[in-house]
């Protein structure tokens, strides 16, 4: 615990140091920038709502990635899994003849899990059956998912008379997930994210399956002890990861954009990869780091509005955070070895 606190302290110092340096190089006022990012994320309920609406998909993707990292899989295909989840949800939402919004939304929920999960299974299958490393398989499938969503938006699902990357037609109001009174984040989204976090913790830390997964991830030969094959665990973990990412896609469609857009994943899959690495694969840190990244994402909008700085700086800051984490992890490993 003491070492964890020390790492967090050291990491924070490095993050702020790096970030201040980047801001100085960009000619930005350092304190004013930090202040504006903070206020931009937390100064009103609207801003906190916005942070939470970024936090939710980040949490879902991160929880999914924890499964695959446990199995020692690099699930780069998480982006495509979000996209396919969103497509699955949209496909269900377009089914004609169902009158009850709750029923359609429930269908969309499961369709998104299925869409993401199957896309994950495909990456897993490529690894276990085809010998394609999951990084390359995942990357390839991300491109395929991107191509597929573009085809749908510019083709069969385009708005009447309009083919634009602004997306499909807006969903009817009764298919928008409801929000807390006075808030603008979907209640269901927050509940789903928290539930998935708790389930992930219970599954990975408390269940026999979770322990097996960890053992096999660290040493595939351990599978022999359990009289099973590591492939089975790889596939299970990547299906669950894809399913969680798919749920993020469902929420992006029904709670954020209310339509399908080409960049529906918003890059949250890649961001979640960085986040999980930054956490050192500890579930307990994920909600806090997701909150940090989400607030940075939302708060950084203030940089162009108030200080006329390019908001791409937030990406640089995120990069600094990850570099800091990798540096600390690297140093720790070096210390262990020596």
């Amino acid at each position: 615990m003491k070492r964890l606190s020390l790492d967090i302290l050291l990491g924070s110092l490095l993050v702020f140091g790096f970030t201040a340096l980047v801001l100085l190089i960009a000619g930005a006022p350092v304190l004013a920038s930090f202040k504006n990012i903070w206020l931009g994320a937390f100064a009103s309920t609207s801003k906190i709502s916005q942070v939470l609406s970024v936090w939710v998909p980040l949490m879902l993707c991160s929880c999914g990635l924890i499964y695959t990292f446990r199995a020692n899989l690099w699930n780069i295909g998480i982006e495509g899994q979000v996209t396919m989840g969103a497509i699955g949800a949209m496909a269900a939402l377009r089914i004609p003849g169902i009158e009850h919004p709750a029923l359609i939304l429930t269908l969309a929920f499961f369709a998104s899990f299925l869409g993401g999960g199957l896309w994950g299974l495909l990456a897993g299958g490529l690894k276990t059956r085809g010998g394609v490393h999951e990084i390359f398989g995942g990357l390839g499938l991300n491109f395929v998912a991107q191509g597929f969503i573009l085809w749908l938006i510019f083709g069969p699902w385009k708005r009447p008379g309009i083919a634009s990357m602004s997306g499909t037609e807006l969903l009817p109001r009764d298919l928008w997930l409801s929000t807390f009174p006075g808030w603008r984040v979907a209640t269901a989204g927050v509940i789903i994210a928290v539930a998935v976090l708790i389930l992930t913790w219970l599954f990975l830390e408390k269940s026999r399956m979770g322990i097996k997964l960890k053992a096999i991830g660290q040493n595939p030969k351990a599978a022999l002890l359990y009289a099973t094959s590591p492939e089975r665990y790889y596939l299970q973990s990547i299906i669950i990861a894809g399913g969680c990412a798919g749920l993020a896609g469902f929420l992006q469609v029904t709670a954020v954009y209310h339509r399908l857009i080409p960049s529906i994943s918003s890059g949250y899959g890649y961001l979640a990869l960085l986040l999980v690495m930054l956490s050192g694969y500890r579930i307990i840190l994920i909600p806090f780091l997701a909150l940090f990244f989400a607030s940075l994402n939302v708060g950084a909008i203030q940089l162009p509005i108030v200080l006329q700085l390019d908001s791409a700086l937030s990406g640089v800051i995120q990069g600094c955070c990850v570099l800091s984490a990798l540096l600390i992890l690297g140093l720790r490993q070096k210390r262990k070895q020596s």
Partner: protein
Amino acid sequence: MKQSVTSMAMAFVAAVALLLTPMQSSAAEENFVFGLLMVGPSNDHGWSQAHFEAGKEIEKHIPGSKMIYIDKVNPADRPGITIPFLVEDLVSKGAKLIIGNSNDMTDGIREAAMLHPDIKFIHISGDDALNPESPDNLSNLMGKMEFGQMMAGFAAAMTTKTGKIGYLGPLINDETKRLAASCYLGAHYAWTNVLKKDASALTFKVSWIGFWFNIPGVTSDPTQVAKNFFDSGADVVISGIDTTEALIVADQKKKEGADVTAIPYDYQGACSTGPDACLGVPYFNWFKGYAHFINNTINNTWEKEWLWLGPNWADMNNTMTSTISFQNGKAMNSETQTQLAAFAKGLGDGSISLFSGPLNFQDKSVFLKKGETATDMQIWNLPQLLEGMEGASK
């Protein structure tokens, strides 16, 4: 020791309090704050820059006015950020009027207008205001760029030696279809009425990239599309997108010795990215429309309006009074300049009316019978490209 700890603690608390002070003072001190949401970068040499500079002109000419803005408002550049969220932020900084400068913001601006009935909204270039049920605080503004594009098409046809003109289109909607059609009508007029050539010898090909500007991996690459046009024999490319790739490619080709030109779009200074290859540019001046709505808001005379402003034909390049202008480029020869001036005069006095029958749609169905002239609404809602044009209508 105890004292210094207390002072340090007080300094810390003061620093935190300072850090957390809400930041509304600077904007609130201005008399009238307006917000501008731009779909592209404020320095794109195109659509968004034209809006940005109009906003700056407003600050100069309407005392006490102050613009707050954010550019690159699109899901690819700002993932997860929605229009209603940005509007709320601008309102919290004191904005009394919000301008959304893209047709693609239609849904977001409509939602924001319903959420903020006390704030005025200008949406460019939708037509919500024509719907009696739309919110009263939402107006639409657009310029009659059809005239600018007719002039662009005219200049292109006067210049082409191969008889092949390429039109680099953004996405397919009513606005882009009518602008591409206007270009074609201008080109067709020059080709058949001025040059007295056979209409069948003119090729006018439209290629849509999928959005108003390049988004790698999502849209077609406008640089590649422009290159393809030139490689397949076109010697003039007219751009209908917000950025200047067509002109940049033409300029490179020209430097390599090819006899090609291009016509950018939207922004007065667009030719500067490739002056030697620039035939001219049709551009918007948003000052007049902005000033109309902002003054009405300040004077409490706001009305829901759908404003489609045309050129000031008497002084077309007056940026304060003419919403639509056309700037001749270095690559336009003097003969074309003379003919173009006569063409513009004809458009201005009504002696030349290009949306007049007989005109057919691309699928050969009748758009306008002989003797018929299109109404504004027929042009605004043009359902497909015209006969004689190549390219997708849907």
